[in-house]
């Protein structure tokens, strides 16, 4: 029966689209977690820099070398970095919400298609 095959095809398309969404969601979730830990690290560094006296020697590891940094510059850099990470987290959160919504609609249509398929199969069996 043509419509039965049609529904089956639609269902498998929906399922593969759904699993692609799930993969995407997982990927973004992992990125979110990484950003979170980076944010924490930078906040700790910021707190530490705030405790330092004005004349403290601060270095930053750039590749294999320690480069001397001005304390003010270091504070500013870390502050900017925190701001940047927070913005990135906001972006990812929006993305994650969107993906959640998309997953929910795909799930609905999968359920509907499965019901259709069952009904069609029952019909076919009766006939």
């Amino acid at each position, binding site marked *: 029966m043509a419509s039965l095959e049609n529904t089956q095809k639609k269902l498998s398309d929906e399922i593969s689209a759904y699993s692609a969404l799930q993969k995407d969601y997982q990927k973004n979730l992992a990125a979110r977690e990484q950003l979170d830990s*980076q944010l924490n*690290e*930078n906040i*700790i*560094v910021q707190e*530490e*820099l705030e405790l*330092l006296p004005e004349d*403290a*020697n*601060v*270095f*930053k*590891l*750039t590749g294999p070398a*320690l480069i001397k*940094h001005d304390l003010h510059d*270091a504070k500013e850099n*870390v502050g900017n*970095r925190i701001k940047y990470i927070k913005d990135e987290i906001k972006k990812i959160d929006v993305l994650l919400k969107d993906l959640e919504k998309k997953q929910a609609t795909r799930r609905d249509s999968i359920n509907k298609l499965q019901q259709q398929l069952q009904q069609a199969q029952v019909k076919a069996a009766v006939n």
Partner: protein
Amino acid sequence: MTPELNMLQLSSAKQQLDQEMELLASSIQQLQAAKSKYEESEQCVIAQKNVSENNEILVPLTGSMYVIGKVKDADKFMVDIGAGYYVEKNGSNTVEYFKRKVKFLNEQIEKYTKLLQEKIQMRDSVLEALQFRQQHLLAANSTNLDPAKLAQKS
């Protein structure tokens, strides 16, 4: 009685609690590992105080090769404060830094341990409710199958 959860909801709640407990336990372990690293570093800095200037030491270039070095300044340390930043500190400041870190970690560990205990309690009550349900179900089944009652019904 308050509206109760069914068995399915209870067991999924238990599963979720199990996962959360696992995560908390591994976090606590990681925090503890970090703490002992800081404590070890603190001990090293304290030990360094007893090293006089121009003392000869062996500096590891690789895991299996060393060169001879001389301690130029036993009261100057480069401390990694994270995110690629290093700060020069003297001995007592360095010890103070590690003490601060250990204190911070202790607070975190305490917080997480408290959370873990709460989860354990919640899991226990969920488990209890589950068992209660199972017993009820069992009892209900056995009365239904009781031949005397079946005879009465028919």
